[in-house]
C-alpha cells in the first residue's frame, strides 16, 4: 500500500481535494494529517491540483510510505516500497 501524509493546512489542501476528485482513498485528518492511500501506485499531477511549484515540491513533506518513481515539475508517481 502506498501512503502519503498531508498536513491539514490550507496550502496543502488542494492535494487532498484532488485525491478525492480522482477517487483515491482519503482518510482523516487524524492528529493533524490526512492520509491518501492506494494499492500499487499513486500518481498526482501538479497542474490538475493547481499547485505552485514551491508547494508542489513539498507535497510529501508530511511523510510517505512507498518509493518515488517520478517527481518532476508536473508529475509525482509513488510506487510500492
Amino acid at each position, binding site marked *: 500500500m502506498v*501512503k*502519503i*501524509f498531508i*498536513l*491539514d*493546512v*490550507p*496550502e496543502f489542501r488542494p492535494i487532498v481535494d484532488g485525491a478525492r476528485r480522482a477517487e483515491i482513498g482519503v482518510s482523516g485528518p*487524524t*492528529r*493533524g*494529517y490526512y492520509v491518501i492511500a492506494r494499492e500499487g501506485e499513486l500518481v498526482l499531477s501538479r497542474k490538475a491540483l493547481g499547485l*505552485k511549484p*514551491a*508547494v508542489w515540491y*513539498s507535497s*510529501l*513533506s*508530511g*511523510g*510517505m*510510505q*512507498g*518509493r*518515488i518513481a517520478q517527481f518532476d515539475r508536473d508529475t509525482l508517481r509513488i510506487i510500492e*516500497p
Partner: protein
Amino acid sequence: MKQPVLKGVHHTARPTWKLAETVEFYRDKLGLRLVHAISAKGWGPEGHPDFLHFFFDSGQGSTIAFFYYIGAPQPDYLVHKPQWDCDSVHTAWQVDCEAALLEWKAFLEQRGVKVEMHVQHELIESIYFRDPNGYLIEIGRQIREMSALDERDAAMTLEAAIAAESEARARGVPFKSIEAVWRRKGALQSKAAA
C-alpha cells in the same frame, strides 16, 4: 534558570566593498533612512582596519547594517556568488499584505531594480532582488499565521531528518535525497497511529 526571551531583530550586518553604491541603493533607491553610522579607528583584533558601520531603517525597530573596512581588500571567499548556496544567506523583510508586496514590486521596477523572482511559498509570498553587492533581498507577506500544528510537524520533520543524517554517517554513505526523510517521517506517522 528561566528561558530568556528574544524580542525580534535589532540588525543584521554584512561587509561591503562598494560604499557609495550601497548607500545609494538602500537610502536613495529603496528609500530606507540612514539612521546610524559608526566611524572608528581599527581596534580589537590585531590588524583590524579602520572602518565604517552604518545602519538603514527596515521597520519595526529593525535595521540592516553594513561594515566597510577601509583599505582592506575583498577576500575571494566574501565575493557573493549569485547561486543557491551563497544566496541562502539573505535578508527577508516583512510587509503587511499582498497589496503592500505588489506596491514594493512596482516601486522597485520603477526605480530600475530587477525583481528576479516572485514566489508563493507555504507560509510566505515573496519577491527577490539584489543589492549592488549581489546580496539577495527578499520582501514577503505572511500568508497565514503559524500554528501549533506547524510546530509539531516541524519537530517530526527534523527528527526524521536528523535520524536520516545519522544513519548515513554511521554507514559512511552520502545523505543525498529528501526521500529518506519523507520515508522516516512516514514511519513515525505510522508508529504514532499504532
